[in-house]
């Protein structure tokens, strides 16, 4: 079992929809959780990071962590075609430990 798992998709939504991207993880020692966005043939770009359980909001993006169920979510409100990319979730035990990445979910936002 991979330590961090994601449904690879592809996920296709109409412009303006609310998108929900999800990850599960198996290591209960993970405390730090990150979401990266990766456009085709580009490097990953950090969107958000959160510590432990709870929500964190940044503009149209909300990250949610539920440690009891080992579930991480990223919500995108008012999705735009420019949000079309692969979204990678990642986790680490501490903010200095190596990061374990999921395989990513491919998202297409259709105009």
């Amino acid at each position, binding site marked *: 079992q991979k330590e961090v798992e994601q449904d690879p998709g592809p996920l296709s939504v109409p412009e303006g929809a609310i998108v929900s991207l999800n990850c599960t993880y198996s290591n209960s020692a993970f405390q730090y959780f990150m979401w*990266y966005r990766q456009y085709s043939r580009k*490097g990953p770009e950090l969107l958000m990071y959160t510590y432990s359980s709870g929500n964190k909001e940044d503009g149209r993006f909300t990250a949610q962590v539920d440690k009891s169920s080992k579930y991480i979510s990223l919500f995108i409100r008012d999705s735009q075609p420019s949000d079309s990319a692969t979204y990678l979730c990642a986790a680490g035990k501490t*903010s200095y430990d*190596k*990061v374990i*990445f999921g*395989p990513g979910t491919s998202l297409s936002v259709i105009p």
Partner: protein
Amino acid sequence: DTAVSQTPKYLVTQMGNDKSIKCEQNLGHDTMYWYKQDSKKFLKIMFSYNNKELIINETVPNRFSPKSPDKAHLNLHINSLELGDSAVYFCASSLNGRTDTQYFGPGTRLTVL
């Protein structure tokens, strides 16, 4: 004004050759990383350096050797290239060794024929 840059962007080579990938960051960070992203898109840490000192050294064949001449540069040298080395290699950097806020380069797409 590129933050993390890598050269070359594409590298096509024959099995058995030796090649190097260079990485430079101008963010003033003190920690740099090499990641490998395989065909299934899994991004895996290979090495990290903090102030030119090796911090993370994952289970990677010893044909891969990182070199950090200074805090702003981390190069990756690969000896005796194999077909399975074909992947995209990403360099990343962060401040004070923090792995929760890393900045990635554009990647080097290596194809071994």
